[in-house]
């Protein structure tokens, strides 16, 4: 099975082609994808693009982790207020 490299908060990760960013996040030591206004960690909840809990920044643009497939050299950052 071919693998591609992505980075999550600067950490390099090899993942299978075809998995979602949410799935990639769950393979890291910190499964959360963003911090709420009060600083609480939030993780994917509905996994179908409705709840908006899984917002992350992908190559600088805000995206839903559950609705985005990993691409080679994608830079993902867990989003807080930025």
């Amino acid at each position: 099975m071919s693998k591609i490299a992505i980075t999550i908060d600067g950490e390099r990760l090899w993942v299978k082609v075809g998995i979602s960013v949410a799935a990639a996040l769950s393979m890291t030591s910190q499964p959360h994808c963003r911090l709420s206004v009060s600083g609480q960690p939030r993780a994917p909840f509905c996994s179908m693009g409705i709840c908006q809990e899984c917002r992350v920044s992908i190559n600088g643009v805000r995206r839903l982790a559950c609705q985005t497939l990993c691409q080679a050299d994608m830079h993902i950052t867990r989003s807080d207020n930025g």
Partner: protein
Amino acid sequence: MKRADVIVVGAGIIGSACAWQLARRGLRVALVDDGLPGATAAGMGHLVCMADNPAELALCAYSLRLWRELVAQMPEHCAWRSCGTLWLAEHEDELALAEQKQQRLAAAEAESRLVSAGELRRCEPLLRHGLAGGLHVPGDGIVYAPNVARWLIEQGGEAIVRYRGSAVALEPQAVRLADGTRLTADAVLLACGLAANALLAEPLLRAKKGQLAITDRYPPQVRHQLVELGYGASAHASNGTSVAFNLQARPTGQLLLGSSRQFDAPDDVLDMSLLATMLQRATQFVPSLAQMNIIRCWTGQRAASADGLPLLGPHPVHDGLWLALGHEGLGVTTALGSAALIADRLLRQRPAIDDTPYRPVRLLTVEEVSA
């Protein structure tokens, strides 16, 4: 609790403000609410000095003075921000509207200042080039109304006793709840928004649906509440569906976008084509919105009276029945003023502003009701 002095039906921003004001003046209040979301849960929370007619302006200006006295005591979760409003003129001909508004506000001792096109861009860099100018009203602000309502009730302490339930019938100096409880008091104040039509068995208020959208959190880039100058005209139109650009920067970094007006659409369904029109209008003022994500949209119903002014005061026919209804799109702004006028009348004190334009008697046909 001993028998209450006043039963307030409805714990939205109006009922809560009234309960708080009455409690402050030494009355015992029974506050009944059914726990369903009302207009207060749906609105934008813009505290805005509207000036489209003299009575509306007088109540806004009075109420905003009362808000400014209160905001220092409010906890952070009430989300008060003294952001002011920037009214935007898209074209040259709207500058005349800005000037008229400035004069009207000045007459009510509300500060405002004309802003040139260049200054507009300097103070709000996200605005597109080529807007004609605007009017800055520094005394306006924003709050998060549902939390303010809860906080006001808490401030009432033991003088306010809450009842969770639905008021199903009004009797002289009494209210019957769905579970059979009968509350009695010297006075009953209806502050239950559109539901008053059913309780009074007359079509006093008309629903004006509005929809809003909110973006994801982004670094703060907008300082003022931005509203197009054509807003007043579209807000007061008595027929048809309209959209006017209105943008609020929430303390979270989200941008709250409004707003639409639709008559007689009593459901809570989003109208996607209207939403598209709203968002398109918004990008005409703030082009970079097109790159941002909307994470939630919702609708709410404004309760409009026939002349656009609230009904504040005693019911002309039923003894002991009082009304605080029909605040349409300005209920958060005018809540504290409305509550003060109600308390003044109830306690037979002289109100700080002339309350004649808001008295319910103007819209209730006395003969019909008593027949």
